[in-house]
């Protein structure tokens, strides 16, 4: 059986035309007639008909009221457009694989399935892969590279906090003595460059490459050498564990992986940021905890109590549990740190790390200049 549609014989721009064919080589609108034989025959006046295999015909996107089809064996952009509903229905009934190009329920299920697999793999990587990579990679980063990193960080710190190094001679001597005993007890063989920076901010930092910076604000708040010694031992712990590199690798890995999720969904940035912060701060708390452990070991080796460090921290921050969301904090809560250090408290067995005179000199290290 073959049905043929009569090509309309009137010309004009926007009027209804039954069938239009574009051959994919030129934009010429060809008014054609269709013949449903063994293959679909697309006939144009004066030209040999184009033949399309029914099983090769696929539906392409079209506005309502138009059936637009393409053919796998034809030029990729060849299009046949049918505006006559009866003719469209007739063609549809003959093409078994017409809708194969469309994204149907099964295709969507596949996308969802693969996406979930990707999410699971990203989460697994963040939870296990990235910390492992940080632990394994940090020790093999060359010292020289770490130094460069430390230099860059130091330039920034001095821009923010001011470039006022304290170097009163007797104070410096006391500071060196304190660090020497700590380094010996810590078994730290890498170079350490200690420095006291004059600023009211109570803090201490270990920079990659071995620079330890003590802010004079912390000295001002300290009541005895053990308090400062504990903090310095904590920073030496960071150096020994190469925590700067570990944090760097961990944070950049986590940021990169978290950034893969939710890409361009407007407003999802906050979510990605929140989940990334959760992960990195949990890792950071672990790192701080192990630096605390290190500091406690060193203090006990020196026959001194680790408790004063906890007391100094508590004096500075106060009780944090009421105001801080503990899962977002980069350090363990101060009261918990104090509790841990108090549990390890015992009467000192060795003499103080600094004599009272030396301690006074250290406290006054920033006096001579400025």
């Amino acid at each position, binding site marked *: 059986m073959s049905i043929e549609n009569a090509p309309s014989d009137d010309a004009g*721009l*926007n009027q209804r035309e039954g069938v*239009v064919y*574009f*051959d*994919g*080589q*030129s*934009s*010429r*609108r060809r008014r054609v007639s269709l013949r449903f034989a063994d293959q679909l025959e697309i006939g144009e006046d004066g030209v040999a008909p184009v033949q399309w295999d029914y099983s090769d015909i696929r539906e*392409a*996107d*079209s*506005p*309502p*009221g*138009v059936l*637009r089809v393409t053919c796998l064996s034809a030029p990729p*952009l*060849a*299009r046949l*457009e049918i505006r006559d509903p009866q003719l469209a229905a007739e063609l549809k009934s003959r093409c078994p694989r017409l809708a194969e190009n469309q*994204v149907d329920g099964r295709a*969507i299920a596949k*996308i*969802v399935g*693969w*996406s*979930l697999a*990707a*999410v699971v793999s990203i989460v697994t990587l963040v939870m296990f892969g990235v910390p492992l990579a940080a632990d394994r990679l940090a020790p093999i980063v060359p010292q020289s590279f770490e130094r*460069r*990193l430390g*230099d*860059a*960080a130091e*330039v*920034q710190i*001095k*821009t*923010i906090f001011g470039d006022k190094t304290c170097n009163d001679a007797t104070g410096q001597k006391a500071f060196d003595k304190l660090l020497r005993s700590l380094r010996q007890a810590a078994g730290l063989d890498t170079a350490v460059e200690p420095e006291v920076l004059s600023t009211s901010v109570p803090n201490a930092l270990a920079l990659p490459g071995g620079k330890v910076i003590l802010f004079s604000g912390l000295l001002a708040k300290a009541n005895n050498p053990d308090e400062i010694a504990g903090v310095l031992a904590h920073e030496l712990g960071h150096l020994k564990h190469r925590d700067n590199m570990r944090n760097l690798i961990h944070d*950049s890995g986590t940021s*990169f992986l978290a950034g*893969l*999720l*939710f*890409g*361009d*969904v*407007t*407003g*999802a940035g*906050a*979510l990605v940021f929140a989940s990334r912060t959760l992960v990195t701060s949990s890792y950071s708390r672990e790192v701080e905890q192990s630096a605390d452990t290190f500091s406690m070991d060193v203090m006990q080796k020196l026959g001194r109590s680790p408790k004063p460090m906890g007391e100094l921290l508590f004096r500075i921050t106060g009780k944090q549990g*009421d*105001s801080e*969301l*503990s899962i977002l904090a980069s350090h363990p809560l101060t009261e918990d740190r104090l509790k841990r250090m108090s549990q390890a408290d015992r009467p000192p067995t060795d003499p103080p790390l600094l004599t009272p005179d030396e301690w006074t000199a250290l406290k006054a290290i920033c006096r001579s200049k400025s």
Partner: protein
Amino acid sequence: MRWEPPSPPPVPSLVTFSGDRGAYFRLVAKGAGLELVTAGFYRFWLTTDVRRHLWSNTTIDGDAAEYTGRGKELLIGFLFALAILMPIYLAYFLVTIEAERLRAFASIPLLLAFYAFGQFAIYRARRYRLTRTVWRGVRFWMDGSGWAYAWRAVLWGLLTVLTLGFALPWREAALERYKMSHSYYGDLQGSFEGRGWEFFKRVWWLWLLTPFALYVVIALPFLYAAFKAAEWRWWLSGIRFGEVRVESTMTRGALIGLYWKVIGWVALLMVLLFAYLGLSAVVAASMKGMHLNYFFVSRAFVRSVPFLVLAGIGYLAFILATNVVIRIYLVRDIWVKVLSTVRIRGIEATANVTAKGELASALGEGFADGLDVAGF
């Protein structure tokens, strides 16, 4: 040959849009849900579906366009872009360290390199979209160099910043000239006839008003809508493909309603979000047996897990709904509005265009996604 008297050229609309708004709403609502389920990976297919809907319902001179890009291409482009961006980020990091050693924050100008890369991505993404645009069995395509474009964009961008925005019209004209003169429909070459000066004449008063509008915030959407309308009109009216000339009749106020609708919807969604958060707080406080006031005063709410979970769910629903609103008003409705103002002269020139041009990869779209940039 017979001489025909010159008649005033009729300017028929020629462009119509036949898409059903309800169908589009279902498309983007379902897409938002799937984006949630797939942690955003569905975006490649949603973007594609939106384009397919808009393109195939846009009829020019009786024939509808077609978008032949596919979500999978965008996904692959994104993955390739990631593979290329990773070493670039690493190199950026190393160069940053060296710069910071010399001087604190000396690395900030390096961000300029990323801006240039973003412009490159914009050019290449446009190329991908254009080569997936088919009309009458012939595709659009582009040549030219993404880097040549990026450097023009950076230099013009610097000039615009230095002149506090004064040079913006000339920047847009120059960049559009580059893009359009490298765009083709088959063997018909495009060009851009819009001049910076004409654009300037349309928007200079907005430039003067902007400092005041920054104080009177409510004026900002009006100014922005007027600017966008002027930009659309100027841009469309400059587009040429061979003898084909595009014109637009868009009025200054044409887009104001749309922007206010978006603001209204987002405000409404925010009200709903806060009402929901309040309700969650009541539920969470009562679970703890706490008085609601105390729940807030003691800041216990930031540590209440049920409240945080409920708040997270509420926020997710809020951003999904916001995305639907944006895709309806700022994508579809603007598209329809813009099309309704378009007039085309000389469409006869497209009657017999020879197909030409190669498909471009979706790498540019991937970069644009990875760098979070967007543009035409």
